[in-house]
């Protein structure tokens, strides 16, 4: 065995050269080299052949999707779950419209690469394209959980809002905000949702952050911030912001509303400060100062303020004229009220204001002015107001018709101004004694009621305006020399020296604006560019955003 082995080795070592040397006829060295080169080339060629991936890529490039898909499916069936395979399969399935399989591949891919933002985005897009809303929302939530994205936040918030899932919407905006989301519309929306929960401190924080960036534009939003700041104890900050808003927008309506809010929350000083800071002599806001003075019973001061205001005012706005007339009457200066009406043009003054003015002028026996005002009041309105009609008759020297008209007047329902007028007319028609007695009775009644309740009793004297609504007319001017009858002075009975709380009458002088706003709906109720809501827009609806919410025509 050993010999054999040794011989074999000898042959192997020494045999080849021997063979070559001994058989030179058919084995040539160059042939040998060629053989080696040939097989070498074969090997290299084999190694250079494209692998499956390259073949698939080439097939796809050449549009042989079917063959590419076949290869990929084969690989998938053999357990290949590589990202590349799944991705290519998903692409091809999507291209040919095999959606269940495309979805399967994408889900596998997303599960294998949970941190791959591109894959996760692709999955979400696929759900959106295939209208799987639950899957879409879930995919967006998952994306957001991994990484903050402003567009994802916006989309997700919109989806929840659209479907009316308000809690989810609120939660999502809050979560996004913590991570840096600053889209103004959605932060304001969060404030509105939070306000609905009653958390005004949080509302103040939210809106303050928006307003600090000068992006709080909506009147309602500003009002909400103002109120929330007041409720959160930030009255001075509220005032400061209000002043800034006014300087930026010159929106008198908003400031007047804010002043109302301050008055309603018993912050008269702050209201007056705000009015003084933003108001200019002669404008509607500065007129509020006088009204606030009257609210606080500073009649003399208010009267002189109004005189000064009138001197610089042009009184163009009907609403301002109306307010001025009423304030002047309230400040016991009917002649000033008349001058305001004259300046504006009596024919343009509201009929209700004219009636109040005429009554006050008649009460203080300003005949000339009374006649001028009376001429502008419609006969129907005069006829419907017995007291005023009586004043007209007296003015025309017809005591008998006046007497008849006066007998129809419900004296107990008259306010102080009208009582004074009634008393004067009674005197003019020869029934002074009756008037005196009646006034004494009323005064006694008021005094008694005041003693009982500590507050004046409207009762029969419940102040009512010319149209039967809340009192719109002024308190009377007490002029004992001109009016010998015991007419109670403004807010007081003539008998009792007890001052009546000023609110009884004044409270109703201006329209209350607690949670209501005077009808200013001559503006758009929903500005098209509103942040919170837009009028549901067709493609060409005014104020539409640039993108069209409707399917584009083909």
């Amino acid at each position, binding site marked *: 065995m050993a010999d054999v082995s040794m011989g074999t080795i000898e042959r192997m070592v020494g045999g080849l050269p021997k063979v070559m040397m001994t058989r030179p006829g058919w084995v040539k060295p160059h042939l040998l080299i060629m053989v080696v080169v040939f097989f070498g080339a074969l090997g290299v060629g084999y190694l250079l052949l494209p692998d499956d991936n390259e073949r698939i890529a080439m097939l796809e490039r050449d*549009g*042989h*999707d*079917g063959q590419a898909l076949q290869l990929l499916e084969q690989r998938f069936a053999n357990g290949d779950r590589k990202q590349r395979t799944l991705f290519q399969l998903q692409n091809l399935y999507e*291209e*040919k*419209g*095999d*959606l269940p399989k495309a979805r399967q591949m994408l889900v596998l891919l997303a599960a294998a690469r949970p941190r791959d933002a591109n894959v996760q985005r692709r999955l979400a897009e696929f759900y959106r*394209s295939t*209208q799987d809303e639950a899957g879409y929302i879930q995919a967006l939530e998952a994306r957001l959980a991994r990484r903050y994205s402003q567009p994802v936040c916006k*989309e997700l*918030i*919109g*989806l929840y*809002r*659209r*479907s*009316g899932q*308000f809690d989810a919407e*609120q939660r999502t905006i809050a979560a996004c905000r913590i991570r840096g989301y600053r889209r103004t519309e959605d932060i304001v929306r969060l404030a*509105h*949702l939070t*306000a*609905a929960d009653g958390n005004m401190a949080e509302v103040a924080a939210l809106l303050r952050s928006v307003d600090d960036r000068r992006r709080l534009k909506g009147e*309602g939003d500003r*009002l*909400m911030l103002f109120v929330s700041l007041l409720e959160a104890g930030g009255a001075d900050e509220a005032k400061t912001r209000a002043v800034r808003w006014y300087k930026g927008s010159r929106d008198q309506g908003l400031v007047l*509303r804010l002043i109302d809010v301050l008055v309603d929350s018993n912050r008269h000083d702050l209201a007056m400060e705000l009015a003084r800071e933003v108001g200019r002599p002669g404008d509607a806001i500065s007129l509020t100062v006088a009204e606030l003075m009257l609210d606080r019973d500073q009649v003399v001061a208010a009267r002189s303020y109004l005189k000064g205001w009138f001197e610089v005012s042009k009184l163009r706005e009907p609403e301002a004229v109306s307010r001025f007339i009423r304030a002047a009457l309230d400040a016991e200066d009917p002649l000033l009220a008349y001058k305001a009406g004259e300046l504006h043009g009596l024919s343009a003054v509201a009929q209700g204001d004219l009636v109040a003015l005429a009554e006050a002028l008649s009460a203080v026996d300003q005949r000339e002015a009374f006649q001028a005002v009376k001429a502008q009041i419609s006969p129907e309105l005069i006829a419907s107001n017995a007291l005023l009609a009586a004043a007209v008759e007296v003015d025309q020297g017809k005591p008998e018709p006046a007497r008849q008209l006066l007998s129809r007047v419900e004296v107990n329902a008259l306010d102080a101004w009208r009582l004074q007028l009634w008393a004067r007319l009674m005197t003019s028609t020869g029934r002074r004694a009756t008037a005196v007695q009646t006034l004494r009775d009323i005064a006694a009644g008021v005094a008694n009621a005041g003693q009982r309740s500590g507050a004046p009793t409207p009762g029969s004297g419940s102040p009512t305006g010319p149209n039967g609504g809340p009192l719109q007319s002024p308190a009377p001017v007490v002029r004992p020399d001109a009016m010998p009858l015991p007419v109670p002075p403004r807010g007081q009975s003539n008998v009792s020296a007890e001052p009546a709380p000023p609110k009884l009458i004044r409270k109703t002088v201006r329209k*209350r604006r*607690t*949670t*209501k*706003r*005077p*009808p*200013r*709906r*001559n*503006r*758009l*109720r*929903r500005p098209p560019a509103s942040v*919170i*809501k*837009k*009028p*549901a*827009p*067709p*493609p*060409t*609806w*005014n104020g539409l955003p640039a993108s069209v*919410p*409707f*399917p*584009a*025509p*083909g």
Partner: protein
Amino acid sequence: MSARRWNLPILAIGIYLIAAFGVCVVPGHRAQALEIEFSGRSVKLDILALYDRRQERAPHLTRIHQFAEMPLNHLGFRLTYHDVNAGLPSPGELARYRGVLTWFAEPLAEPDKVLDWLEVALARGLKYVVMGAVAPPVSEARLEQVNRVLARIGLSDHGETVDMPWKARVLERDPEMVGFERPVDKALPSFSVIEARRGDAEPHLVLEAPLGSGTVQSTLVATAPGGGFADDDFTVHYEPNTNRVRWTLNPFAFFARAFGDERRPIPDTTTLAGRRMYFSHIDGDGWNNVSEIEGYREAQKLSAEVVEREAIVPYPDLPVSVGLIASDANPALGGNLTAGVIARRLFALPQVEVASHTNTHPFNWQFFESYDRAEELRLIESHSAPALSLRERFTRGVFKVAGRAMPVSQSDKYVAGSDSLPRTYMRQPFDIKNEVAGALKISESFAPPGKRAGIYLWSGDTTPFSAAIRTARLAGVYNMNGGDSRLDAEYPSVTYVPPISRMAGDERQIYAGNSNENTYTNDWTGPYYGQFMLVNTLANTESPRRLKPFNLYYHMYSGERPGALAAVRHILDIARKARVIPVKASTYAAIANDFFSVDIVQVDLFSWAVSRRGSLSTVRFDDASQLAVDLTRSRGVLGSVRHEDSLFVSLDPAVETAVVTLRGRSAERAARNESKTVEASLVDSRWALSGLVRESCGFRVTAQGFGTGDMLWLTSPRRGFRVSVVKDGKELSQETRWADDQGQFAVRFAPVAVNPVTIRFACHG
């Protein structure tokens, strides 16, 4: 005894009416029938829609058209638009209207005039439905008059607004009426204080806000016998992040209640012979594009040919209207001769209806209303054409040297590649006759002799002007397209389902039944499989209420991408299996068009005469689960079928004035079970039926349709019929079948009725 005396007059009237109907159904007594019809009470279906042209520049751009008209159409109402700035209709013109609808949000130019007119109009008994404000801007001076108008619907406006709505709460909400697609927002908007007089108005949404030490309530949605009111903020809601609109108010319930939901037949444009209509139409866009689909790309096949082979030829049972863009087949304008060859093959197929998709494919129709060629040329010049390739330049040079006309290439500045120019083919000046009538003639020139074009399909923005529509009408064809109906997760609201039509001046454009693949594929940028999602709209417009027919609408460029083609085939396969009646697109357009002319007269408590209905052959009764058609007292009625809570009644197109009489469903069932007669009524049919003639024992009817003729009739249980199909006097088939234990008589015919056949049901046994 006294009870009998009380009933005598009613009995007498009943006997008279029964006798009268007996007379009606006897042939040769038409005059008497008419006498009865016109002695009845006309059912008013017209509603006057006021809009402000300064804010909403055309009727189709109004809120009313975008949101309200579809639900109103569904309820059977037809809208006439009127601009409040153009003078309001005289009282004499109001007689035909059931009511007035307004949806003002912006200030009117002359609110006082509108208020004056409303007072006069409403005094004549018109119902008044106000969405938003009555006549903005509201002022204190105008408030009294506004309240006089609102008083018609039991409401009054306090002239105040709650501007701290976060303190308000929903006090009362009618879930049937409010919260339709979206609940009332948690963050309430500011709202006006509207008071409802209980008893006069029925509040559906009431909010309450604190005021001083008390509260104030406001009714923001209400209906009343005189109409209805919905505050603007509680009608539709616009969501800005996703750019979508949804209803808060239920428009179907609201309009039904506000305009009167008395029992009446509703003309229906979705259903024929008891089945949902199926129709398909193809716009020619992309006809000459080379397909990228494997197997076709290698042979450089055009998309149109791919569609022909894959989506038309294999579906002979599903008709399709193919709209050729005439210039696509004209090489001189930039088209391709092969296009004509394909058109010729397509139009020769029996299931293909010849149609036109314009001549030069306008994108922007308004541009051509006051056409200026100089302006068009300026636009052409301003859009730089793509640079010519070396090969193209060489070819042009050769042609120029040879003195021959140059082939049109993509670099041709007169061929637009997108809608940035007014139309696709601009070499010749625009001419409306050539654009419409000329294009129709070109389409017909590719069709077999005698086969006429049936419909004109609008292109581009699909908002043709009045003269264009008129030209199509005068050319003798129906017109269609636009609307882009969607109701799915992407467009999740019925606000995206358009009404039946759009008015341009006095002319009517019929909207397509569904949107095409363009909106599903992001303006053909992909993903191209998007039209698979059409199934969602099809399902959502079928239930809970059938709003639209089944319409497969696509372009020839769907033959370019495998995903798009797969989607089309998927929908075709669904249609093939669905319980639908396949019709041509022009059939649907005719029915939709005739919706607007139907006359309905109520002849007694449960009977209505339906006339002037043209091609429209279905009326619907809603909330009719307990009602059935009384065939013995009806005339021109083929039968009825239930879908959801509605009863769809199939009318015989051959009968000019049909009379539909209802009775209780239980009575109908009992009568059928006990009946020994051969009375049979149609449930549904895949073929359109007309001219039903009752014979001594059995009946015959004319049928026309595509594919197999599946039919279901209702007769007495186990009744047998010998059924034969006759065409041109020749009996094609005959078989005997029996109804089942419920009286359902199902029958299927071979596909032989592309041209009308007569089907005879003769008693057997």
